[in-house]
């Protein structure tokens, strides 16, 4: 973010700034009327905002304020949110500190962002920490369907750049031809090969990377390749306003790195090779391209590393302007699907362009994870629909209802379970006086205090003070069964009551009325599911109540 702000400052410095409070006049809605329809459409989306809705970029102090609000977590640290949810980050292997998340409340859900099973820098994808999840949500998967890329590439690459579209050997065939290449490679070693060739042809290389971990790995692989070819004197540059911070910082985070790099910690070595490269004077960290320092050390051919800002900002721009016409030079950039747009201002481009694509989880890997973890349900983007045949191919084809495809803006409802596991304190269990029923169930009634702690339910004994407050509801009972009139009559008469049965059999066999005359007047109305006792003699009432109760099941 700081780099973005710095570069924005640079941009303003270079190109001047209109008053930051106002949009450029050509972006004000009244001006739209005069624009051609197509232009207007590009500016204003359907909902009337779109690109015309420009925002001011945040400043440095905004970054600080924002960062102050962030609570840092460790991998696999369980954080309770208001005690009703528990969230946990787990390494995704894609970047330094990149994480997938496990969110557990009533259900346990895992969200997989771009993930990598084997990572050269950061800690690898941790599948084990998702063991308790019932729902897996996958996003940012690798699509095998590369048609989209190819179209994009052919259309984006300038004529002559992409003569050979052979996908399988994009690198060798094209680079050896001494011209250019427009392919997607997934392996850093491939990248380093092309870089090496470029250097051998005395061309310079601009490597744009998306993430810091990626930068570190690319840097290492390329420097290693140069070493192997006795080209150690080729200078390496890392250009970024925050270059120094990044390089120092990355050397102090062993617990976020891959197992191999952690071994380096135990051996007491630097975590990344850049420390050594810096000491040897091969790698130069430059805060800006136009500085005195740069002038001193700059030498071509060289390899320049910079963060990828879509070729719109930062040190990449002057270098692109410088090298774009030089067919010996090479641009390595991450595949984003926006290549055409990115390269547009630099046309015609003569330099070679190599796309590098990080490994991500694909259909194979997802299937393997599903197979291993067996979640109740897993969600994948709709765009991947065609690519999950293998899941259906197994014997469970018909029964595979655990996969759901989602689209942007879709709201999917995942049914909540009827029962949730809760913890009941043993003290509570001790207060239960269970009653064995004929059905084999044991039933008991208890008063509990319900709490949530870290997403889990806990049933505890009520505190004494609270108990007294709720004394009123304590007498609430449930009971069931039907009072048999004859039995009740027997009991009542057995207790010496003088009573008489008024059966209203003509209406309903189950409704009866017992009228007691001595010792006090009383009536008892009986139905299938009700009993009403009417008397003013409390002793008698108690007696009748007991008689009725003995015929019912109470808890």
């Amino acid at each position: 973010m700081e780099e973005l702000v710095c570069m924005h400052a640079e941009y303003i410095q270079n190109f001047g700034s209109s008053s930051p409070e106002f949009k450029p006049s050509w972006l004000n809605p009244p001006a739209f009327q005069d624009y051609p329809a197509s232009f207007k459409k590009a500016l204003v989306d359907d909902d009337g905002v779109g690109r015309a809705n420009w925002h001011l970029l945040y400043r440095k102090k905004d970054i600080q304020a924002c960062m102050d609000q962030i609570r840092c977590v460790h991998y696999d640290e369980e954080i309770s949110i208001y005690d009703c949810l528990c969230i946990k980050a787990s390494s995704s292997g894609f970047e330094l500190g990149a994480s997938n998340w496990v969110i557990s409340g009533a259900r346990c859900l895992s969200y997989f962002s771009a993930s990598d099973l084997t990572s050269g820098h950061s800690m690898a994808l941790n599948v084990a920490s998702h063991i308790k999840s019932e729902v897996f949500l996958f996003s940012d998967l690798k699509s095998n369907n590369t048609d989209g890329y190819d179209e994009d590439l052919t259309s984006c690459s300038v004529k002559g750049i992409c003569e050979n579209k052979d996908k399988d050997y994009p690198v060798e065939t094209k680079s050896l031809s001494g011209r250019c290449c427009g392919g997607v490679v997934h392996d850093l070693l491939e990248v380093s090969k092309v870089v090496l060739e470029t250097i051998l042809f005395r061309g310079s290389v601009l490597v744009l990377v998306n993430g810091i971990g990626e930068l570190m790995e690319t840097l290492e692989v390329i420097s290693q390749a140069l070493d192997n070819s006795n080209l150690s004197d080729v200078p390496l540059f890392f250009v970024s306003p925050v270059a120094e911070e990044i390089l120092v910082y990355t050397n102090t985070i062993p617990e976020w790195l891959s197992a191999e790099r952690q071994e380096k910690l135990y051996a007491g070595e630097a975590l990344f090779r850049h420390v050594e490269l810096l000491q040897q004077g091969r790698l130069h960290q430059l805060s800006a391209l136009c500085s005195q320092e740069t002038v001193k050390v700059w030498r071509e051919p060289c390899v320049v590393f910079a963060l990828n800002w879509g070729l719109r900002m930062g040190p990449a721009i002057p270098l692109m302007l410088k090298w774009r016409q030089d067919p010996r030079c090479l641009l390595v950039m991450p595949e984003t699907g926006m290549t055409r747009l990115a390269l547009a201002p630099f046309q015609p481009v003569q330099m070679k362009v190599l796309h590098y694509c990080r490994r991500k989880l694909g259909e194979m890997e997802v299937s393997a994870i599903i197979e291993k973890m067996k979640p109740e349900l897993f969600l994948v983007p709709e765009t991947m629909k065609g690519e999950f045949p293998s899941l259906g191919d197994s014997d469970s084809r018909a029964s595979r209802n655990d996969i759901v495809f989602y689209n942007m803006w879709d709201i999917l409802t995942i049914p909540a379970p009827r029962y949730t596991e809760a913890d009941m304190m043993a003290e509570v269990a001790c207060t239960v006086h269970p009653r064995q029923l004929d059905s084999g169930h044991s039933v008991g009634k208890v008063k509990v205090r319900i709490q949530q702690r870290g997403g889990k339910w806990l049933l505890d004994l009520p505190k004494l003070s609270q108990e007294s407050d709720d004394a009123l509801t304590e007498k609430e009972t449930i009971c069931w069964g039907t009072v048999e009139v004859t039995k009740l009559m027997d009991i009542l008469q057995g207790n010496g009551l003088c009573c008489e049965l008024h059966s209203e059999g003509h209406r309903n066999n189950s409704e009866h009325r017992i009228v007691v005359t001595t010792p006090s007047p009383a009536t008892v109305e009986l139905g299938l599911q009700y009993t009403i006792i009417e008397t003013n003699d409390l002793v008698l009432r108690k007696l009748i109540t007991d008689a009725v109760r003995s015929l019912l099941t109470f808890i």
Partner: protein
Amino acid sequence: MIGGKTIMFDCGMHMGYHDDRRFPDFSLIPKRGDYTQSIDCIIITHFHLDHIGALPYFTEICGYEGPIFMTYPTKALAPLMLEDYRRVMVDRRGQQEQFSVLQIHDSMKKVTAVDLKQTISLGSDIQFRAYYAGHVLGAAMFHLKVGESTVVYTGDYNMTPDRHLGAAQIDRLKPDLIITESTYATTIRDSKHARERDFLQAVHKCVTNGGKVLIPVFALGRAQELCILLDDYWERMNLKAPIYFSAGLTMQANVYYKLLIAWTNQKVKDTCITRNTFDFKHVSVFDRSQLNAPGPCVLFATPGMLSGGLSLEVFRLWAPFEQNMVVVPGYCVPGTVGYRLVTGKTVTLDADKRIKLEVRCQIHHLSFSAHTDAKGIMDLLRHVSARHVILVHGEKPKMALLRTRIISELGVPCFVPGNGETVEVPSRLVLKVLASEKFLTKSQSNSLQTSIKSKVDDVSAPKRHMEDVSLSSIHDIRSAIIIMDKEKTIQVLNPEEALNVLNVSQHNFLYRCRLPLYISGMNDKDFNAPEVFDRGPTEGNEISGKELMKPSKKCCRGIQEFSGFQQQYDLEDKDAENELIWAERKEQENELELEDKGAENERIWAEHKEQEGIPHSVLEAMVQTVYKHLVKQLGDIVCYKQDNCIVANSVCIKISSEKTQSGTENKAQYIFTCTWSGQDEELARQIISILHMMQIASQASA
């Protein structure tokens, strides 16, 4: 042993012994086959030898193969510490080594490194988490959970931040047991600042006078802190005397410290971009040839406590001279030379069997320990709020004092077990039950909101010393029905759900009472007039408590008097009415269930529309008046009106007019039929008494 699992916390050694007693007596471990089967896992808190010293011995010689856990820094630094110890033992003392370099490394390979707060699950039962403990780099406290039993083991910790480390941080975990160190069980230390100043001044003075300062330290921890302190001081005071580190060991340790900046305190972390705190300007590596070199110097020599090795060797050389100084930082184990110096028992030292050594140099004891003091221990215990306390890592008499204090101040049982003693502590038992969603969520939303609000308020409060995260504020009292089926599955349900599960329906068990009352066609003024009604609920309660019987009896007589009517009424209307009531009620209950209004307690009763003698509106006005009155009298009990019925809890008062016209114009006769279920007996009585008072009042006013 916790929840059937055996966990070993720390695997240390005694620094004061040089025979078999230095290692723990592993034979005391309850046996289940070999050690690997007997112990489920070993958790090491930090890299000090008294916490890790026996680990290679245990894994490589005793053959423990199970999992071992420690933090990243501990895993990185422990081999240095162990190797240093091994070398001291073998090279300097000429003892037979207990384990080799290779064995140290093999041992460390079996270790799994963990991060702070990372929740690690081992098997399905064991779960644990590390918390920052200060003390030394990578020191951690561990919270362990096996099944439902929980233990916090603190290892060594420090509640005040020092030059390079932060203070211990732990959540309010409320474990069954906390095992805490108690090195300074009774000491309360003054401000650290003053101690630092004294130390620096003493060193400064000694160096200015041309003396040599020996600081025996362990390679890691104290050495770095004092180095930061001295380096900083040298810089400020522009001192030139050299500061040495003995051997490359401590220097090598600094490399690790630089890598592990994330485990230091915030200040060090913040400055590490510009200058790594562990890049010392004035510190250089010590060469043995400088031992007898003239001129002042400061030397950090290992091991600490002067228990042998270079530090003892240098001590022997320097101690006889008055201008020299020995700084003993921190705690010394009884039996070491350091301990004897600190306690000041001898000035003549039997450092070797042959040579008697007279100690003439100055001795500066720096109470600079990275252990917390008594106040810190109490603070931590109070914060963690465990149900039982065990004190370890301290001196018996002081621990006994602290124990008394814990028992009296915190009111929890506290134990001070000796070696080989067993303490048994009961843990909380928890049953796993299945609670229905309905039961749990019944009134959750309300309490949730309030709790969120209270938490938000919490956040705005100034940050406390230790994070206090989990205040369980979501709670709610409810009665639950617990059903255990044949498979011993326990379900927790709402009463209604329970009936469904049991496949039965509720039997309504009710009482009824009819009150024929003469109440004049009154207005609100009449009600307000009599004083008795304004006295509030207490008055009402008194009446209902004692005198309630009288009105009831009277009412009974009343019923008798009108039995003729009643009989007729019952015969003709009762069934129809009842059916109506029950049908309606069921419908409403269904509705209730559907809408889940949470008003199950309230029995809504059907209306009874037909009213012949008196115009409907008059009756309605009557109901309205009575309702108003009841609301006023009943206070906080929810009471509502539906057609000719007034309902409060399960009590339903149905008001109908008398069929046979009687009384004068102004006076109408009404029948109040009260029906209630057993649980609302009190309320029913109260209402009946109120209704009677109304009658009396209206008669009086008439």
